[in-house]
C-alpha cells in the first residue's frame, strides 16, 4: 500500500503571549526590561509548569509521527485540547508546524471549510465559483461539475438569488455541495457533521464513505465513538499533544474510553483544569458510589448506584441546574437528567447561595446493562448561561451478574437491562382479526378531535 500522509516528529508550540495578542508598547517594554536585565514585566507571577505548559509556551503537539495508507479511513480521537484541531490545521496548511514535517501525496481538502468565503451579496451561482476557487478548484473543473453541485445542494430554484436570502439550512447545503465535489485525494472531516438535519448528515456520511471507497483517504475527527467505530478501521488517540496510541479502531476506542479520565470511579477537578469562564461555578468531584456509600469503579447492575457531584459556588446563581449525561462507550446517549427536573425542586432551589453543594441521584437496580459507561456533567442556567460542561468526566463499568436473563450466557443488546414484569398465562380463544382493532383506532381519533 502506498503511504499518502507521512507525519514525522511533528511539533507545534504556541506562545501564550502571542495568543492574547500584543501591542507595540508591550513588546517595547519587554525588550527594554531585557536590556536592563530585569524580568519580563508581563510574565504572570507564580506561573507554574503543569503538563504540557512551560512558562509562556504551550505544546499543542509534541513529536507526533504516524503514516496513513492510501484508501484508509483514519479516526482521530482525544479530549478537547488534545491537539486534534492543531493537527488538522497544520495538515490543511492554515498554520505552520514548529518542527517536524508532514509529507502529503495529493490534494488535501477539509470539511472544516464548509462555506468559507461565501459572500452574502453574491448569488448562489457566483458563490459556487468563488468558493470552489478558494478550495482550490480550477474554473474549468467547477464548470464541469456545476450541475452536479446544484443538484446535490437541493436549492436549484434559488441559484440566482443572493445567498443572504437563504435559510441557514439552504446555505449549509449549498456550501457542503461545493466542498463535497472537490474530490480531493485526502479528505479531512472535523465534526461538521453536527450541522444540518439528520437527512443531510446521512448524505455527508454517505459522501465520506464514497470518498473512502473510491480509493481516497479520509481523516475523521470526532467525539462520537459510534461514528468512529462505524466509519474507521484505524484510529489514533491524542492526549495533551502526544500520540498515545495508534491501533485498530475498536482497541483505540476502548483505550480512549477507559484511560486518561477514569480515576477509579472518582473524578476530581484541579484548579487549572477548570476554564475561567466557569466562574462562579467550580466543580470539585464526581463520584460513583454503591448503596453503602463506597466509591466504586465497577457497579453491579442488580444493585442501585449513586452518582454524587460536588461543587462550589463562589457567588449565588439563580436558576442553576446541574445535570448528568450518561453515554455508552460507543457514544450513544442513554439519558440526560438535571437535579431540578422536578418543578417543586426547581422552585425551592431557585436561588443557590454561595457555598459547597452535592447534587446526588440514584440509578435504580436492574436498569443498566453490562458494559462501560461514560458520565458527563453540565451546570447551566437554562437559556441564560452554561457555566461548565465536561462530556467525558468519568467512566465506569457495570457488571451484569444476576441480571435478568444472565442464566443464558449471551450478550444482551442495548444499554438498559430492566427487570420487566412478564406475565405468562393461557390465552382465551382469539376473536376474529380486524374488527375490534379498527373500532379502537376510531374512538381514539374521535377523542383527539374533541380536544
Amino acid at each position, binding site marked *: 500500500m*502506498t503511504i499518502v500522509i*507521512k507525519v514525522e516528529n511533528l511539533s507545534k508550540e*504556541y*506562545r501564550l503571549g*502571542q*495568543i492574547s*495578542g*500584543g*501591542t*507595540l*508598547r508591550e*513588546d517595547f517594554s519587554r525588550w527594554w526590561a531585557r536590556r536592563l536585565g530585569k524580568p519580563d514585566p508581563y510574565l504572570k507571577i507564580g506561573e507554574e509548569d503543569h503538563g504540557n505548559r512551560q512558562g509562556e509556551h504551550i505544546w499543542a503537539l509534541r513529536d507526533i509521527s504516524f503514516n496513513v495508507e492510501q484508501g484508509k479511513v483514519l479516526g482521530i480521537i482525544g479530549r478537547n485540547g488534545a491537539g486534534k484541531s492543531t493537527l488538522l*490545521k*497544520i*495538515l*490543511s*496548511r*492554515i*498554520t*505552520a*508546524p*514548529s*518542527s*517536524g*514535517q*508532514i*509529507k*502529503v*501525496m*495529493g*490534494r*488535501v481538502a*477539509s470539511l*472544516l*471549510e464548509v462555506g*468559507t*468565503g461565501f*459572500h452574502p*451579496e*453574491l448569488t448562489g451561482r*457566483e458563490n459556487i*465559483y*468563488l468558493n470552489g*476557487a*478558494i*478550495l*482550490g478548484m*480550477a*474554473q474549468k473543473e467547477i464548470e464541469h461539475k456545476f450541475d452536479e453541485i446544484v443538484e446535490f445542494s437541493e436549492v436549484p430554484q434559488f441559484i440566482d438569488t*443572493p445567498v443572504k436570502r437563504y435559510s441557514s439550512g439552504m446555505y449549509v447545503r449549498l456550501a457542503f455541495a461545493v466542498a463535497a465535489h472537490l474530490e480531493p485525494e485526502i479528505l479531512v472531516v472535523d465534526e461538521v457533521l453536527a450541522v444540518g438535519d439528520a437527512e443531510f448528515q446521512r448524505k455527508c456520511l454517505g459522501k465520506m464513505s464514497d470518498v473512502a471507497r473510491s480509493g481516497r483517504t479520509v481523516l475523521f475527527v470526532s467525539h462520537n465513538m459510534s461514528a468512529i467505530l462505524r466509519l474507521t478501521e484505524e484510529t489514533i488517540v491524542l492526549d495533551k499533544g502526544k500520540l498515545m496510541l495508534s491501533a485498530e479502531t475498536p482497541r483505540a476506542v476502548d483505550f480512549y474510553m477507559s484511560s486518561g479520565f477514569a480515576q477509579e470511579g472518582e473524578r476530581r477537578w484541579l484548579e487549572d483544569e477548570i476554564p475561567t469562564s466557569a466562574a462562579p461555578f467550580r466543580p470539585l468531584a464526581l463520584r460513583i458510589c454503591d448503596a453503602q456509600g463506597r466509591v466504586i469503579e465497577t457497579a453491579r447492575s442488580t444493585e442501585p448506584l449513586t452518582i454524587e457531584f460536588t461543587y462550589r459556588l463562589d457567588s449565588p446563581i439563580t436558576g442553576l441546574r446541574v445535570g448528568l449525561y450518561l453515554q455508552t462507550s460507543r457514544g450513544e446517549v442513554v439519558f440526560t437528567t438535571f437535579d431540578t427536573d422536578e418543578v417543586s425542586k426547581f422552585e425551592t432551589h431557585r436561588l443557590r447561595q454561595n457555598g459547597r453543594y452535592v447534587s446526588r441521584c440514584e440509578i435504580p437496580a436492574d436498569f443498566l446493562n453490562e458494559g462501560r459507561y461514560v458520565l458527563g456533567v453540565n451546570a447551566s442556567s437554562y437559556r441564560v448561561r452554561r457555566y461548565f460542561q465536561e462530556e467525558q468526566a468519568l467512566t465506569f463499568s457495570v457488571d451484569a451478574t444476576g441480571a435478568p436473563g444472565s442464566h443464558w450466557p449471551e450478550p444482551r443488546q442495548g444499554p438498559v437491562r430492566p427487570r420487566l414484569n412478564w406475565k405468562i398465562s393461557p390465552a382465551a380463544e382469539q376473536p376474529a382479526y380486524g374488527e375490534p382493532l379498527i373500532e379502537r383506532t376510531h374512538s381514539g381519533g374521535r377523542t383527539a378531535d374533541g380536544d
Partner: protein
Amino acid sequence: MTANSDSIEPVPTGSENWSLVIRPQRNLFDLRLGELWKYRDLTGLFVRRDFVSVYKQTILGPLWFLIQPILTTITFTVIFGRIAKMPTDGLPQFLFYMSGTVVWTYFSDCLNKTSNTFITNSQLFGKVYFPRLTVPISILISTLIAFIIQFILFLGFTLFFWLKGADIKPNAWVLFTPVLLVMMAGLGLGCGIIVSSLTTRYRDLRFLVAFGVQLWMFATPIIYPVSSIPEPYQMLIKANPITPIIETFRYAYLGAGTVSIPNLLYSAGFMLVVLTIGILLFNRVEATFMDSI
C-alpha cells in the same frame, strides 16, 4: 498513479513522489510564485467579488467611482484654489487638482485596502489555505478598474478644457502611463503588505496607517506644484517617492512641471526595495499568523 510508486524497488529517500511537504518556516526566498499563478482564477473571482459587492444595494452603483473624484476635485478647487489661492503652474485649477487626486487615490486605496489583508480575512484564512498574496493582488486589480474609470473621466475633462482653448500640452510622455501605474501599484502593495504583516502583531498600526496616508498626501505635490515649494522643503518633497510619479503624470497630460529621469529611477528603486521587503515579510507572517490573531 505514476510509474514511480508502482516500482517494487525500495524508494531511496529524497526521490519520493510527495506532492507537498509541510515544514516549519519556509526558506525566506521561497515565494512559490508558481502557486500564485495556479490560483489566478481565484484572484479573478476576488476582483469580481470586490467590484460587485461594493455597489450592490446602492442607488447610484458604479457611478460612485465618478462622484468621488469630482467632489474631491471641486473641494480642492474651492479651498486651495479659490480661497487659499495656491499656484498651479499656470494650469486650469480643476485639471491640476483632478490629475493629482486621481493618481493619489489609486495609490492610497491600494495601500489602505491591502494593509487590512490579514485582519479582514482572518475568518477565511483560518479555515482554508490558498496563497495569501492573491488577496492583495486582487485588491490592486479591482482598484485599477476604479482608477481606469476615473482616469477616463480625467481624460474627458482634459479634452473639454483643451477644446475650450486652455493652455495644456499633452506629449509623448503619455506613453509612459503604464510604467507610472506599475510604480504606483508596486509602492501601494509594498507599503500595504508591510503594514498588514505588522498589524497581525501590533494592532496599533491600523490607526497609524489611515492617519499616515493622509499626512503623506500633504507631503506629495497633489494640491501644490513642486515649483511653489521654498528651497529648504524641496528636498523633503523630492525624497517622497510618489512625487516624481505625480509630476511626470501631470507633465505628460498637461504639459506643466518637470520630468526628471534620475528622480523616476529613484522612485522605481524605492518601489523595488519596499516591494521586496513587503513580500518577504508577508511570506514569513503568512505561515503562522493564525496563531497570533
